[in-house]
């Protein structure tokens, strides 16, 4: 059957041919086409229709609801810099590793300045990250990933408690701990 439904932005099957135009289209989310979008063709053809049923029941807007402005977040440039350092982190190069770790620690300290105007949740995540970068001398790939996630979350102006809980879980799972340095020292001890 020859079908054509360019409203789906790519789901085109015209006897095996695919239109480059429709492939370029920004995809419409499947299953969202509702009654307000009329059928594609004005006259009956073999086009695939079906966008006409289920006229939605609209809920009145909350006109009176005030949109609370988000507090000023952390310094975006510093956060981007931190992610850049983590993306290029090379744990095999001892000198570079030391430099990058020092840079990360410095960035975290600098971030605390802008954290004063951020939310408690931002400060909680920053504290977790600070604890993490101070507790290790190098980073594994999994640890880099967890830290990147933390820095990227900090760039979000609005955070919820789940953000903090997830970052804490992630960092603990990757072996970050305030006692990590001590455990390394313990290897040289009596055990």
């Amino acid at each position: 059957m020859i079908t054509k439904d360019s409203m789906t932005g790519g789901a085109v099957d015209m006897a095996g041919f695919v239109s480059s135009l429709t492939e370029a289209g920004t995809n419409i989310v499947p299953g969202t086409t509702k009654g307000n979008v009329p059928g594609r063709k004005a006259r009956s053809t073999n086009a695939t229709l079906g966008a006409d049923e289920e006229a939605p029941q609209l809920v009145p807007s909350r006109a009176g609801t005030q949109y609370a402005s988000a507090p000023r977040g952390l310094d975006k440039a510093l956060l981007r810099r931190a992610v850049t350092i983590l993306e290029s982190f090379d744990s095999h190069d001892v000198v570079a590793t030391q430099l990058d770790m020092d840079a990360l620690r410095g960035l975290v300290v600098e971030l605390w300045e802008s954290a004063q105007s951020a939310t408690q949740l931002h400060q909680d995540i920053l504290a977790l990250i600070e604890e993490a970068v101070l507790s290790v001398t190098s980073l594994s790939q999994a640890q880099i990933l967890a830290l990147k996630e933390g820095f990227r979350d900090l760039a979000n102006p609005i955070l919820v408690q789940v953000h903090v809980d997830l970052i804490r879980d992630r960092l603990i799972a990757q072996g970050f701990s305030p006692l990590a340095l001590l455990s390394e020292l313990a290897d040289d001890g009596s055990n």
Partner: protein
Amino acid sequence: MGLWNIPTNYAVGGCDSMAKDKQKLIQDIFEARYEHGYRYLDRCGDTLVVLEEALPKVSRGAVWMPDEIAPKGARMKCPEYELTLVFDSARLGLDQNPADEPCPFSDIADYAFQTVKSKFDIADVIRLGRRKLFIRPTDSVDDAEALSVKKAPFSQWPKVKGGQLALRSCDIAVDLEDPDRTKGIRFAISAVHRPEAPLGLDDRLRRPPHLLAQGQREALLEQLKRRRQREASPVAGLLIDVDYWVIRPDDVDIQQFLKSSEEEIAYVLESFMESS
């Protein structure tokens, strides 16, 4: 009959809806495509929990609820604004359909994207797209078809044998891209209708009520009803589909992209509506 086999009442401008009504936004879509989003499979649950908690704060308190969670993709819905958010390992899409209710669309799109980027560790964005669908309402199927022909950039194409066939409706799509193909606009028009739309409208129903010999009040009420129908929920019209995209943007700033897409789409739409 006129040159294009269009009933006379259109040729003389008898279609009252053509001249008076403005286009109405019916659907608004944002899409980001990315590479290496495989962590979707590990982090989908975390992401949904974060978005379910955080999105109401970005959406003026509107509730968001997970709708479908599967390895092929996850979907969340916000019934208050008729918004649907989907994401998977390759793309994130935000779709408002119908787009009747004003909402902080760009804030929601930005927040959702930043969350997915953080949780899936997205480094490379392949494409950002914004697509808006408008309808220029008409009263009938015939009106919609006539409008599609009227707004087409050509009058007689292609040539056909004999003089019996003429343009009845136009379904047009064009791509416009910059030389290095990093930015583009797809523009398309077509006549559309709902099943309940009348095929045509009697010419007498278009006459100004005060010129009628009798039944002026009823005629006026009918015309007002049709106008309200066109404004609230059009049964037929010219669908105008504008899709704007950038490929591999250097700076992935969603707010900036959405702002520039608004401007680009508005410009194209305005120039189209002013033409012919």
